[in-house]
């Protein structure tokens, strides 16, 4: 392990695995908008239909 890396680990407890985890994060769970945020978006995108259209309906199977 390079000396600088070792010094950092000793001083801060930060290990390579912490750094690699920060560099390669898993995708967080999605949290969807509430109506207040939708209203803010509508104000921002008055001239377009940006992001406001609902997902395209898909036929149900079975």
């Amino acid at each position, binding site marked *: 392990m*390079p000396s600088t*890396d070792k010094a950092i680990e000793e001083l801060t407890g930060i290990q390579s695995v*912490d*750094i690699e985890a920060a560099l390669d994060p898993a995708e967080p769970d999605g949290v969807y908008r509430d109506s207040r945020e939708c209203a803010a978006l509508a104000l921002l995108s008055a001239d377009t239909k*940006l*992001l406001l259209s609902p997902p395209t309906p898909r036929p149900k199977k079975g």
Partner: protein
Amino acid sequence: MEQSGTSALLQGAVQDLSSDVVSALRGGDHVRVAGTGAVDGLAGGLAVAAVRVLGADLLLPHILSRTPAAPEALTVFRQTVEAFPPRADAAPIVVWSHWAMSRTLRRLDAPQAGSPAGDEGAEPEAGWLDEATWPFLTHQLAVLAPLAVPGEDCAVARVARSRPVDLARGFVRAVRRRDWQQAAGAGRWLTLLDGVPDTLGLETGLDFVELMGGSDPRVALQVEAARAMRWTGAFV
């Protein structure tokens, strides 16, 4: 997801550094790189680890404005590149992040024999993106947003250029999921790409991302980077 104390500490330091970069992008000033004056103190050591996590974006203001970085910032950046080489079994994102730092160093630092700045640095492979679904592609590209730099080509940038519509879909998905960091990173890539659907409303979308997520300096950094690139009118 709950973070360990160490991870939270590191993320806080990354946010502090990101704030410095945002200030530099907005004001055209030097990146200050607060707390990295020495690596032999707790704050210094933590900040150097944060430099590795923030990666090439630390010196982005100087890349975009074509101005020299402060010698202290460049020294810390070089030390970080040398101190944190990717392991042989590191994930592609970790390898590419390190390669991006080396590339930035080559552009801003005078080459020195035996130093990362002097190495040509063989480009890593991007094969893990070949069959990537559009959500996965967007997530990976957003994490690798420091590679989205005008006038710089690499295998990851070529993948992005080949899939602008998929990336646009991923941008919308990220906004819907309130994943502001992913949305901002994807938006930065889209700013540089041809073939992005006009109906996406990218500029307005980035405004929205900033409105909702801009309190996180890492999000603000990507939005500011996208704006700076748009103003320069540069393309990958």
